[in-house]
């Protein structure tokens, strides 16, 4: 999942708090809605004006896990668990999966979920008309998906419905992580009648998930109601209300208008004398921030330029000054906690003198001979976030290179990036969809991957990643991914910045909350006690 989803929210927060206020008394505004708020989990959020972000087949976020669901999912401890599929069988060569769907699994309108619904959903995702840039990444192991995406086939060869509740899936090779990929929304099930009901079907989705979307007022609120017929048991919390653009979420939390919020005033809430300190939850997220070098464009087609830009980056100052010390340094692509994370990894050091020397050794000969450099970010207007500003300053100070920042409209950011409409540098970042290093090294850097937005291509790396995909010995497999990470670092495939930490405030009456390092649908595990 791309980190920019999160960064967009942070951007809004930063803009909001970048202006300075002066105290003057004013009564708090009233809040009205026709549902009992003591039975609702109330949150603050935003919305995209891009319909593709609400279609499981094309989305880049995980927000859809309330309304839609798939064959498998993660529990709170990140165990892979059966979901719409009650169980499955795997052939002796690990290339054929037989999924048995739950007899009681239904869409929100009461219609039973069948194997044909799975096939419809996945073939729809793979249809050339939909132009999904995630389908090959998450479903591409299934035989025939690539052929359908490219228009060479009109169906997915590897799918067949044995009966209404039995689905057979054939994949191209024994890949240990195949089931993990099915937890991403691309593999979620949609209702054909619902999808074909009009362009705005996503605003009244007929999903299979634990919550039904019952009201969506543009830029005002989205209301979800518990799906009493949910096949894994009805959720305890009857309603979830997401107020859209209602204000600064942290401030709304303090005044009792939301139940959970991300925190930006970290120093304040980590202070034990702060009354809300005990409501603070902290943890890691399996995320890595990085700057993407477009290796197909000058000057980043030269490894010495990439190394120079990496070594002109003062990671510790970035963490201390921009992030107030609330992040971990990223020397490579894998975040701490992810299998494959190598605490001994030697990243490229901060060395301005060596960076300038490398720039001289490049085919461009130095800063003065570099072409104009555009840094593409997700944003609206002329606001530049602290992270981007710091990078610009460090490159200017240490290399003598000035960049132009290009803020692309966030609602259509991914569409533009996927079509190659971006500068030579991109604001990047990745959070694990599933806890496997394949989700980072292979998805982000294998030649031709839909998420390889820098166009990085290295035959040696590709061979290694392809071997790792089917390596059956877990120790060897992890070692191969660590080797892949070293190649990425040595070749300066990207500038790795930080691993973000998570800080959340949670009201005491919200029970069962777990700050998971991967974004999973936790609401159905939660309950309200005394709200």
């Amino acid at each position, binding site marked *: 999942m791309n980190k920019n989803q999160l960064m967009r929210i942070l951007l*809004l927060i930063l*803009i909001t708090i970048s*202006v*300075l206020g*002066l*105290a*003057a*008394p*004013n009564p708090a*505004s009233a809040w009205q809605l026709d549902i009992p708020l003591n039975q609702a989990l109330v949150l603050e959020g935003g919305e995209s*004006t891009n319909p593709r972000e609400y279609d499981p087949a094309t989305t880049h976020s995980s927000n859809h896990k309330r309304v839609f669901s798939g064959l498998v999912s*993660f529990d*709170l*401890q990140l*165990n*892979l668990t059966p979901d719409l599929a009650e169980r499955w069988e*795997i052939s002796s060569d690990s290339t054929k999966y037989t999924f048995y769907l739950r007899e009681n699994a239904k869409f929100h309108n009461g219609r039973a979920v069948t194997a044909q619904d799975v096939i419809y959903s996945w073939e729809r995702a793979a249809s050339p008309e939909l132009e999904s840039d995630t389908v090959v990444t998450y479903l591409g192991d299934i035989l025939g998906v690539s052929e359908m995406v490219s228009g060479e086939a009109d169906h997915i060869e590897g799918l067949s419905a044995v009966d209404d509740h039995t689905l057979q899936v054939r994949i191209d090779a024994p890949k*240990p992580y195949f089931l993990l990929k099915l937890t991403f929304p691309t593999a979620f099930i949609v209702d054909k009648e619902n999808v074909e009901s009009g362009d705005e079907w996503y605003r009244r989705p007929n999903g299979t998930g634990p919550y039904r979307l019952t009201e969506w007022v543009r830029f005002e609120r989205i209301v979800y109601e518990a799906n009493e017929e949910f096949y894994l048991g009805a959720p305890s919390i009857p309603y979830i209300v997401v107020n*859209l*653009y209602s204000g*600064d979420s*942290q*401030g*709304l939390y303090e005044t009792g208008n939301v139940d959970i919020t991300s925190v930006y005033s*970290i*120093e*304040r809430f980590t202070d034990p*004398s*702060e009354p809300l300190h005990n409501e603070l939850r902290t*943890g*890691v997220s399996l995320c890595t921030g990085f700057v993407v070098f477009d290796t197909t464009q000058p000057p980043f087609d030269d490894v010495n330029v990439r190394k120079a830009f990496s070594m002109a980056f003062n990671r510790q100052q970035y963490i*201390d*000054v921009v992030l107030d*010390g*609330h992040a971990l340094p990223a020397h490579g692509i894998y975040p701490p*906690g992810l*299998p*494959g994370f190598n605490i001994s990894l030697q990243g490229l050091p901060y060395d301005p003198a060596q960076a300038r020397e490398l720039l001289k050794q490049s085919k461009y000969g130095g800063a003065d001979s570099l072409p104009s450099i555009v840094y593409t970010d997700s*944003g609206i207007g*002329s*606001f530049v976030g602290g992270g981007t500003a*710091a990078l*610009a*300053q*460090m490159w*200017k100070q240490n290399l003598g290179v000035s960049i*132009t*920042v*290009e*803020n*692309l*409209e966030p609602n259509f950011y991914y569409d533009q990036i996927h079509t190659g409409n971006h500068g030579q540098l991109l604001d990047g970042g990745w959070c694990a969809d599933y*806890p*496997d290093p394949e989700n980072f090294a292979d998805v982000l850097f294998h030649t031709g991957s839909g998420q390889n937005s820098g166009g990085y291509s290295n035959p040696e790396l590709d061979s290694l990643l392809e071997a790792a995909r089917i390596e059956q*010995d*877990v120790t060897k497999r992890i070692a191969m991914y660590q080797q892949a990470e070293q190649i990425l670092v040595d070749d300066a495939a990207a500038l790795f910045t930080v691993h973000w930490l998570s800080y959340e405030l949670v009201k005491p009456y919200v*029970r*069962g909350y*777990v700050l998971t*390092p991967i974004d999973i649908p936790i609401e159905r595990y939660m309950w309200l006690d005394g709200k």
Partner: protein
Amino acid sequence: MQKTFFALILNFSLLTFTTGFAYPRATVTDDKVIFNFPESATFQATITSDAEIQSIVLEYGNEQQTCGEVIAKAFPQFTPGKTVNAKWTWEMRQSGSLPPGATIWWRWRISDANGNDTVSETKTAIWLDDVHDWRTLNNGDSQRVRLHWYEGDQTFAIDLAKAAYNGLQFNETNSGLKAAAPIDIYIYADTNDLKDAILYEPSWIGGQAFPDQDIVILGISQYDLDWGRDAIVHELTHVLVGHLTFSCLGDVPTWLNEGLAVYSEGELDPGSQQQLEDAIRSDTLLSVRSLSTGFSEVSDKAYLSYSQSYSITKFLIENYGQEEMTSLLVTLRRGNTIDDALMQTYGFNVDGLEDIWRRAIGATPLSISPEVQPTSQPTPTLVPTIVPISVLPLGPNQTTPTPIPTSTFNDQSTPETPVRTAPPLWLTLTLLGLCCIFAFLIGVIVLGVIVRNQNRSGGKNE
């Protein structure tokens, strides 16, 4: 770092003016922006070309201090054709509010099927609510401050302008802060009008400063001039601090920024002073470090935060001098943390400041033990140990028996779901015992029957 500043022409409707030139390949007409203040700005134009128009990009932005050149791009949705109506809306609720008086610029970049690229004229407009009849005070010091208002007579405006000039003078003399560019001050008739003009304001807002755009907005009633005079100085000070400290790599902690602003107003008002003294007496002062990144939304706590910030800043200025304060701000601008900047300037860090300031005002030392006291050094972060997924179990009849363990971390707040995989041991043993007794009794009975039958047979034989 680059700062661009377009001359502000106060028309306050949709007055536009051109600053660029056009390539003649596609024609752009009816090119305008329509404001739905303060929620959105819609850019629209009719574009005509001899060949089918295939790509339209809106390049736009707002004038403000930035780090390097910044160009925003939006992508209007349209059906390709030789004549296209292009439209895109800047949703302020998504981006955050622009300040009233901000200058917006835009141009269209067009590509057609013949491979021709066209860039339209760059236009600008002032983002301001035209429901008010804005007036501008013209006087001799407009090089530094321009005051705009719509309610009240000229005397009212002059009074506030004088307060602004006095504030500038005070800051220059006492804090070493100078205006690096003209500052536009917009006076709304009251805080309700002010709140109607911006989004996401705190509930207790009275004014806002936008240092990157040299703009201050305030809601000042004609009947609340005393407060207004102080408020105008407060917000101007934020702009001056912004001018001195603007940096692509550095920031000023909230307590220092707000402290300088309140300090420039003069003494604390009696209510705030009392609140501060109460907090000292009751040992409920907030820690300095906790005032670094924004204040509380809760008004009482916010007011105390302002008063404390004033007290800390006053302590620094009046004990160490104005030059040291300027040095602190410049050190922050150079990309130092507040701990390092304080250490370089005064020889102590935030924790040292906490101690020395509390001692100076007669407050109790921060009583939190060093183990839990917030410091600049984050505590080690615990990370989950996730077990890598291994090869899935093989075999033709293999079902999915149990979840694949991928993590060893756990959370105590997880609802405990009782998992019963086998009966308790005591029950098993009891049942086993009962079974044995039952089997024993059955055996005795069976044996008895056999013996009896044998005895009967024997009797007959005998």
